[in-house]
Each structure stands twice: as C-alpha cells, then as structure tokens.
C-alpha cells in the first residue's frame, strides 16, 4: 500500500490556506509562507487588541503581555549581561515567533512553517547577519577581525579560519538544522501515527477498536509532548542567538 510519498522529506500535506492559491496567490509562494503570514496577522491583531487602552494597573490581556515581555527581557539580560537589554526585542521576537510557529502545526489543518527547511535557514541567516553586523558595529572591521584572530597570536591564521567557518557555516547550519529536524521529525511522527490509525480502520472494525484507538491515544500524547518540544527548541534558538550576539560584542 503506497501510503507515503517517494521520500518523507518531500511528503507535504496541504493546509486550510490552500484555497488562497485558487484566489490568485502565485504558486511560487510556499504554503509555509502563507502560514507565516496568517500567524503574523494573528499575533499583530492580538497584541493590538490587548494594548489599545494601556493602563497603569493592567488587566487581563495587557497583564499577560506584560508578563511575557518581562520574562523575555529578563531572559535576554540573564544570557547577555546588562548591555544586552537593547537586544531584548530581537531575541524576544525570535523566541515568541519560533515558539508560535512550532506550535502552529499542531492545530488540525495547519502546517508548521518551521517544519520547512527554508524557514529555519531564513531565521538562522537573520541571526548570522545580526551577529556580524553588531560585531562590526561595536568593534570596527579591523577590531572584529582581531577578535576572530584570537589570543595566542601565533595561532592566528588557524583560529581565524576556524572562526570564519564557524561563523558563516557551522553556526547558521546547526541552528537551522536543529530547529528543522526537531519540528519536522515530531510532525512526521504525528503524521505517521495518524496514518497508522487510518490503516487499522481500513483493515477492520476490531482492529480499529483495539490497535487504532491505542495508537490514537499515543498520538495525542505525542502531540502534547510536541508542545513541550516546540517550546524547548524555541528557547534553544533564542538562547543560542543571544549567546552568539553577546560573543560578537563582548569586550575581554
């Protein structure tokens, strides 16, 4: 029974936003991008509604947002030191956006944009460009190259080469592939379990009632676990981004 596509990496299922292609969105806009747009719209609408009348003693929605912002800023300062407060919007946005993207795919009918390698590579490129920009901005180009040259002066060329490969290749790739692998793997497991439940139903009623419901129970548990994994992976990405930027702007 040909239940899967040729390669699981190519296996895609549509989302509820597929109708937008019929409405005229060009085909080269990936479905992940459409889900990103929807998520951005939802975040913007929710934050606008919550901050319409800012009061000094906040109530429900504003209270929640203030809690989130406070936690993110504290987390950024904790990782980067007190001069990292200016980076709190960037790191906080990374964490919130990636967490919501990871969890978005668990809603029935939607796709996680981070289950697509393009999204995660784009995010990793953002972090890389930000690191280089802030490093060169704080130290100047020559100062930044000296920073990459390292402390034992005679090991300079080797350390420069290693650091260049690390900054431009190893770090962005590992960031992107870590996030993509975790979220895509989790979503694939959930999808395969769902496929197995359908298979047991196609075999017969008794098979569905015994094996199918058990597999369905496991799938529900794994969906709950995927919430936790999405949160942890967003935390990892944001922490690493903060550490990289802090490493680029640090003074010895």
């Amino acid at each position: 029974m040909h239940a899967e596509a040729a390669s699981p990496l190519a296996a895609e299922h549509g989302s509820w936003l597929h109708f937008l292609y019929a409405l005229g969105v060009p085909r080269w806009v990936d479905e992940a991008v459409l889900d990103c747009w929807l998520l951005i719209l939802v975040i913007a609408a929710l934050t606008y509604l919550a901050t319409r009348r800012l009061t000094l003693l906040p109530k429900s929605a504003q209270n929640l947002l203030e809690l989130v912002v406070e936690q993110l800023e504290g987390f950024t300062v904790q990782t980067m030191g007190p001069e990292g407060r200016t980076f709190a919007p960037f790191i906080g946005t990374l964490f919130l956006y990636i967490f919501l993207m990871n969890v978005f795919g668990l809603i029935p009918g939607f796709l996680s944009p981070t289950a697509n390698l393009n999204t995660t590579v784009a995010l990793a490129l953002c972090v890389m460009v930000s690191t280089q920009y802030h490093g060169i901005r704080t130290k100047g180009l020559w100062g930044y190259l000296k920073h990459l040259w390292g402390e034992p002066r005679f090991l300079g060329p080797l350390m420069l080469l290693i650091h260049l490969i690390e900054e431009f290749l190893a770090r962005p790739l590992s960031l992107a592939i870590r996030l993509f692998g975790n979220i895509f793997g989790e979503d694939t497991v959930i999808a395969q379990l769902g496929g197995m439940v359908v298979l047991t139903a196609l075999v017969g009623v008794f098979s569905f009632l015994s094996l199918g419901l058990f597999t369905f129970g496991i799938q529900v548990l794994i969906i709950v676990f995927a919430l936790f994994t999405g949160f942890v992976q967003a935390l990892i990405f944001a922490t690493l981004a903060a550490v990289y930027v802090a490493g680029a702007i640090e003074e010895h």
Partner: protein
Amino acid sequence: MSYLTALVLVVGFGVPLATLMASLAQSRVGAAAVEGIARQPEAAGRLQLAMIIALAFIESLVIYALLIFFILMGRLPNTADVLSKVTGH
C-alpha cells in the same frame, strides 16, 4: 554485499548508534544537574534551565542523524518491487 543491503543496514543502524552515545551523554548531564540541585535547592531554576539547554544540544546531534535517515529512506526501493523481482512474480 550488495548496494541495497548496505543501504538498508545503514538506514537501520544510523539513528540507533547516534542514540546510544547521546543517551550516555544526556544521562551525565542529567546526573550533574540533579546533583547540583541537591546541593543548592535555591539555584534549582537556573540549573534546570542549563540542563534543558544542554540536553537540547546533545539531542540535536541525534536529529542530524535522523535527517540523514529520512534522506536515505527516500532512496530505498519499494518493497513490492523488490519482492516481485526476488520471487519472480
């Protein structure tokens, strides 16, 4: 050993080998974190955060192996085709 036999062996053994070493490493991280919390319960929050981050680092190495598994699994032939070729009908 034929190409497909080697491919199937690699597809089967890739992730488990990675998981072997990763589980050893993660157990060390967990043990160190729990010991630290036992010594200083008031630092439990920071220790837990550091433990989660270290665990995610190690797990990401297994995820790289899982990606290779997905790529290679796409290159495996269809079971029905292989069986029909082997048995002749």
